[in-house]
């Protein structure tokens, strides 16, 4: 459980950073003259919290297989999309005029979600490389071989 919470905390910070980048890019191209208030700074944080809720809820004590993990990841992604869209457009009711904006937000959520997975994969790859090196050194130290032999 501790590892799960730690993982989601890391995800939260990555999500907040990615949302800031997405807002910057979308804002620059779609509404360059838009003035935003201080309250806008809360949007990435709130979206970040909403984005990690499905991950926290879907904690499983069982050892999941890779297939189950993929299915879980897809369900989690759909849940994040629904939650963010409901939070962004649900209060004012979904209007036809907002269709383009809904599409942009849905796409942004997908981009952020994939980015989080890619960043985590990149961080884990570095960790795995270090572990492989340590493993080799450990085995060589025990067998008396020199690295590379």
């Amino acid at each position, binding site marked *: 459980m501790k*590892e*799960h919470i730690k*993982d989601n905390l890391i995800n939260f910070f990555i999500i907040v950073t990615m949302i800031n980048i997405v807002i910057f890019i979308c804002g620059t191209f779609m509404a360059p003259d838009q003035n935003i208030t201080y309250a806008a700074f809360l949007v990435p944080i709130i979206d970040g919290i909403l984005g990690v809720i499905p991950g926290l809820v879907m904690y499983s004590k069982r*050892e999941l297989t*890779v297939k189950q*993990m*993929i299915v879980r*990841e897809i369900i989690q992604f759909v849940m994040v999309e629904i939650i963010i869209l409901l939070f962004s457009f649900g209060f004012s009711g979904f209007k036809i005029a907002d269709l383009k904006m809904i599409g942009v937000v849905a796409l942004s959520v997908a981009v952020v979600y994939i980015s989080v997975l890619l960043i*985590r*994969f990149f961080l*884990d*790859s570095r*960790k*795995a490389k*270090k*572990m*492989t090196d*340590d*493993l080799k*050194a*450990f*085995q060589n*130290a*025990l067998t008396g071989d020199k690295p590379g032999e």
Partner: protein
Amino acid sequence: MKIDVKKIDGSIEEYIEIGCHARDGRVNDIIRFVENLDGNISGTKCGKRYSIPVSEIFYIESVDNKTFIYSSKDCFETAVKLYEFEELLGDRYFLRISKSVVLNIMKAESVKPALNGRFSCRLVNGEEVIISRKYVNPFKEFISKKV
């Protein structure tokens, strides 16, 4: 049970002889214990009993309350529980890497990321076993501290 220990000449191979009325569970436990001390683990395959050298074990897995020992190509069933193996083989570089697997570190070849904070460990025979999130840090510490 009477225990008789006698010294023998250094030229003769050491042995243990058990005198019993019937080969029951108690006798099998003694045999298993001695074999474990000697660096062998007993396991069964197709009803036949085998003695597997610890150095040939790749990993030990628990599935549905049964314990299986995996060597390079074979799989043997054993009555010993996974946690017992963890204690018994801890000083022989066997380490728990998930709820159901104890791995022989010396048979691990490389580590790569799997989904969701887990890692996949490739063994020298090409097989892959999962290091679950909870056991990643103990695994990391184990292989880095002893070098």
